[in-house]
């Protein structure tokens, strides 16, 4: 991807975020939009881990859980401002990722998948069982970020939905910008190189374990920030955020949209966030339809939706 592609991707994303509200029939859609952006943010992190570095994680919801509960716990117990709690969560997630990543990134393929899965389950069990601290499966309240009030005092009145739509949109744009920068940087190239051949990457001087760990830590921070934003906008959080299903959902979004591309990941997040909303009509068949969509995409568009569509369009141009 050249520098120009980076700005095209960011431009498309920014335009979509800015223009979509024009078509919203009701305020409810701002909420859905914000949820899409939060999901997309963690999926962009997975693009770095899976798409760039070629490593799998089935436990990234664990980091989302850390980020979410940092926002729930730190303001109450440490007296931190919620915005700083987001940073604290990101730091804790990053450090955790570095600690557990070092041993488990030696593993390959399914072994790595299972090890990360174990981590995710561990976090969700701690959050569920430490009732005294986390309220257990009933969840707990999360303090207000307070930024909306600041904006109101400055004369900018936003509804809750509008505010979170904009904030999450901006954070997603920043996340996408960072990921796209990384793609065409020495670290990103090293990650993509070891994805292709670890031996060859090592012989050109790439410290393979270190680059894998970098990708793991960065993607953990993305998931953590996404978890924090989710907690803050809902004002309430349960251990489900760290649950196995959430991890699977993230990977599914990434793979569905196209795991090599930031824009594709966002697209995947949008579809998998919207589908359940659309499918409420089918209620009990929701899971069935979701599963079917995944299977069909994997069979017919193994590269993911967006890259496959883009390729087809390109093919037609030529």
């Amino acid at each position: 991807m050249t520098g120009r592609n980076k700005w095209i991707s960011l431009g498309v994303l920014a335009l979509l975020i800015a223009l979509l509200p024009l078509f919203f029939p009701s305020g409810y859609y701002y909420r859905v939009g914000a949820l899409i952006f939060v999901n997309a943010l963690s999926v962009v992190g997975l693009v770095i881990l899976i798409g760039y570095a070629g490593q799998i994680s089935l436990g990234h919801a664990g980091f989302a859980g850390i980020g979410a509960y940092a926002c729930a716990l730190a303001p109450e117990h440490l007296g931190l401002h919620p915005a700083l709690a987001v940073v604290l969560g990101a730091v804790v997630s990053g450090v955790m990722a570095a600690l557990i990543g070092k041993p488990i990134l030696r593993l390959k393929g399914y072994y790595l998948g299972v090890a990360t899965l174990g981590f995710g389950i561990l976090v969700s069990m701690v959050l569920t069982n430490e009732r005294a601290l986390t309220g257990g499966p009933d969840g707990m309240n999360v303090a207000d970020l307070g930024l909306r009030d600041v904006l109101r005092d400055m004369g900018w009145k936003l509804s809750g939905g509008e505010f979170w739509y904009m904030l999450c949109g901006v954070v997603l744009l920043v996340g996408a910008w960072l990921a796209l920068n990384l793609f065409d940087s020495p670290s990103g190239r090293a990650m993509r190189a070891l994805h292709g051949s670890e031996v060859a990457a090592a012989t050109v001087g790439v410290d393979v374990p270190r680059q894998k760990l970098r990708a793991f830590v960065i993607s953990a921070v993305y998931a953590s920030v996404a978890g924090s934003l989710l907690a803050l906008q809902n004002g309430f959080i349960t251990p489900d955020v760290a649950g196995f299903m959430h991890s699977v959902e993230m990977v599914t979004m990434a793979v569905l949209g196209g795991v090599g591309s930031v824009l594709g990941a966002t697209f995947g997040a949008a579809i998998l966030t919207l589908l359940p909303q659309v499918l409420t009509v089918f209620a009990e068949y929701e899971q069935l339809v979701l599963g079917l969509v995944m299977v069909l995409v994997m069979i017919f568009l193994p590269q993911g939706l967006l890259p496959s569509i883009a390729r087809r369009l390109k093919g037609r141009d030529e």
Partner: protein
Amino acid sequence: MSLLDVQGLGISFGGLKAVNDVSFKVSPGEIVSVIGPNGAGKTTLFNMISGVYQPGRGSVSLNGTEVTGIAPNRLAEMGLSRTFQNLQIFQELTVLDNVLAGYHLSERGSVWADLLSLPGMRRRAAEARQGARKLLERVRLDKAAEQVAGNLSYGALKRLEIARALALNPKILLLDEPAAGCNAVETEEIDHLIAELAASGIAILLVEHDMKLVMRISNHIVVLDHGEKIAEGDPATVSRDPAVIAAYLGTEEEEPAHADG
């Protein structure tokens, strides 16, 4: 002083001595070839020297420092670069990115600079890009720079690997069958390229099956058979050595034994 000094190097795979007690030296600007029949242990020897395999016995010194069994990326930092017999190309990357990966050591910086696309990173990457384009011209792949590497022909990929290995600006270059699968014209090009590199002071260690190429460009030849060094010397000496001739053609008495192996 020799740049690469291999002493008594050996490795066993499940009791089989794949390489045993091999010693030789390579000096700057010298072309040393390792030859031998299939299965003689040439690639295994390369893998030990380049840190891909841990040698069981013996030592490797680079520029006077012992480097036996240290990781390939550390060896790369010390000026050792290699290509692979069974191509190890980054298939999904563009041709240009493949060579840029070879500039990793000179373009790498802090991960923050990479994430934020800071000017320092952009400058290093731009310099690397310039160098990479020149290398691609040198191996005549400049027109394919933006193509995905996986789409290239076998001969082109061989040249791409050499370009990537050169991107490290190595002191010593290990080439594992660079001319395999190349036609006569391509082989001649590789021949010229290797001679040029040696003339510029790079030490070359070469594994190659094309005997004409080996005899033409080598200063020194090491002959392996069944993992052991059976001869070494300049091309003329080696090509007359009875042990070498026996290993390659088989003596009349040995013919049936060779049919088994």
